């Protein structure tokens, strides 16, 4: 099967974050970026399916220059080639504008399956894959924790997470857009050979005009949402912070738990 996997490069959520000077986003200078967590699981799932069925994975992403690193990492673990939607006009898009651009790129080829992560770790709309399915006119499933391709690639059995510790199992027709939840598999690491080989694999750069799209339909111009400011939540309402070296803080904490909270 020919599988497209959409990935997003996001700030490392473990990094120390600062608000940018204009207050509209975080300061990206000196920030480390990683491939979005659930997208790494989507890529692994795509590679497994391509290996089992004798197909290939094409990795697709959208964003500024730095995204090339995320694509190279995907090529290093086994994707055959990459599509890089690289155009300033794509930037600042909400899920609707981004899905429109991804759909135009994916429609140029005939894929049997599209995989995405379920949610990005930065804006976290959790919607781009479902919207992409809407554009393609394909079925979709979100928060997928189990995937089995059936009937020679005509259908798939899907396990989807629900609240309160239940999974729902169902069958849908392929092609489809399947949005993968973290934990579905164990993403592989790149081998040295894979990293060397990635340099020879093609990364196709795609522009708004190249996709036959109008600039006002993508990026911020094509979005219904605009982030006007970001801020850390108000502090001061939260925890009493106990200070000092480890022993001092630990003893102060135990005293509080016994005498103030009375829970131990």
């Amino acid at each position, binding site marked *: 099967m020919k599988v497209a996997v959409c990935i997003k490069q996001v700030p490392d959520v473990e990094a120390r974050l600062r608000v940018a000077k204009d207050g509209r986003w975080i300061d990206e200078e000196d920030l480390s970026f990683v491939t979005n967590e659930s997208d790494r699981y989507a890529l692994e799932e795509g590679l497994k399916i391509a290996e089992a069925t004798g197909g290939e994975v094409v990795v697709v992403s959208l964003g500024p220059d730095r995204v090339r690193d995320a694509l190279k990492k995907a090529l290093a673990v086994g994707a055959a080639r990459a599509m890089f939607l690289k155009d300033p006009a794509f930037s600042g898009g909400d899920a609707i504008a981004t899905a429109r651009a991804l759909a135009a790129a994916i429609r140029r080829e005939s894929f049997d399956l599209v995989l995405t992560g379920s949610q990005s770790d930065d804006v976290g709309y*959790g*919607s781009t894959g479902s919207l992409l399915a809407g554009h393609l006119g394909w079925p979709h499933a979100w928060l997928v924790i189990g995937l089995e391709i059936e009937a020679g690639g005509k259908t798939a059995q899907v396990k989807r997470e629900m609240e309160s510790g239940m999974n729902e199992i169902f069958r849908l027709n392929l092609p489809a857009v399947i949005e993968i939840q973290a934990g579905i598999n164990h993403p592989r690491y790149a081998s040295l050979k894979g990293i060397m080989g990635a340099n020879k694999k093609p990364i196709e750069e795609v522009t708004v005009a190249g996709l036959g799209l109008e600039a006002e339909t993508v990026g911020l111009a094509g979005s*219904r949402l605009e982030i006007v400011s970001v801020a*850390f939540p108000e502090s001061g309402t*939260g925890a009493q912070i106990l200070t000092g070296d480890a022993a001092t803080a630990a003893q102060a*904490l135990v005293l509080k738990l016994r005498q103030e909270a009375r*829970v131990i």
Partner: protein
Amino acid sequence: MSNLNVWAVLQLRDGQVSRAALETIAAAQQLAAALGGKAEAVILGSGVGDGAIAAAGRDLAAVHVADHADLAGYTPGAFIGALAPALRAAQPAFVVFAHTYQTVDYAPRLAHEVGAGLLPQITGFTSGADGLLFSRPILGGKLQAKVKVRGEGTVIVSIQSGAFSSDSVVAGSVAAPILALADLSEIKPDREILGLEEVGGDQIDLTKSEIIVAVGRGIGGGDKLGPVEDLAKALGAEIGASRPVIDSGWLPRDRQIGSSGQTVAPKLYVALGISGAIQHLVGMKASTCVVAINKDPGAPIFAVANYGIVGDVHEILPALTAAVKAAKGA
């Protein structure tokens, strides 16, 4: 032309108006008040008459009902097919959903189907000179973004659980009219449902634990849990974990606390190296006393904790275990 009314799509639980449904009505009423319109409700299902009557007691311009055999169970094709023609005809300013694993599965697709905007997971809004500004968590809850809506036409919004109080729902002076949705011809189930599976059903039940020591990604690896077990033993606690720990295979899935794991409410919850993403917080925020230990002073867990220590969890753990043992021995 979109109007100023706001629709609330209600998810019934066992045919009844659930707390999530009441929160959805509350959000729709507040949005409608800000716009100068009225809230209306929509109920999808099979045999939902009692739920509709219960909903109609609230201050709503109408309760729309799609009662259809294919809506007894959820598939996106059926639910979208029930709502899309009605939304195209009515063009409400906003359509409000509870942000649940079911609604996130189909609300984006519905937005695409009717050409609406999409604003997921809001925690509140303000109404000012520049119009409405919505808050939503970003970057794992570390920051809040303020978002404005651009352009014209319906916007589909989902609300974070607990963000709008179910107690704030305004009761109606007269029962709202209950109206059947006119066009159900687009209902098309698109999944063959094979069954449900309980995840780790008969294993560790953390919901009964009085004390829980929970570990997050910050613990650094499955081989670093020894000192955590020592603290748990000293406290007489069970060990729980946030999702990344489970996904990395450091602890089994029946230890997971959060929206896709167990929801716990112990008297003491000790969070070690847990940043406090919203998906984790919903599973433990009812705990009586929360202790957070994390190297990042900006971690959202500190906002819900009673006590905190900022520092290296591996340095603090042995000191804390020793202090607990000393206190208990005294």
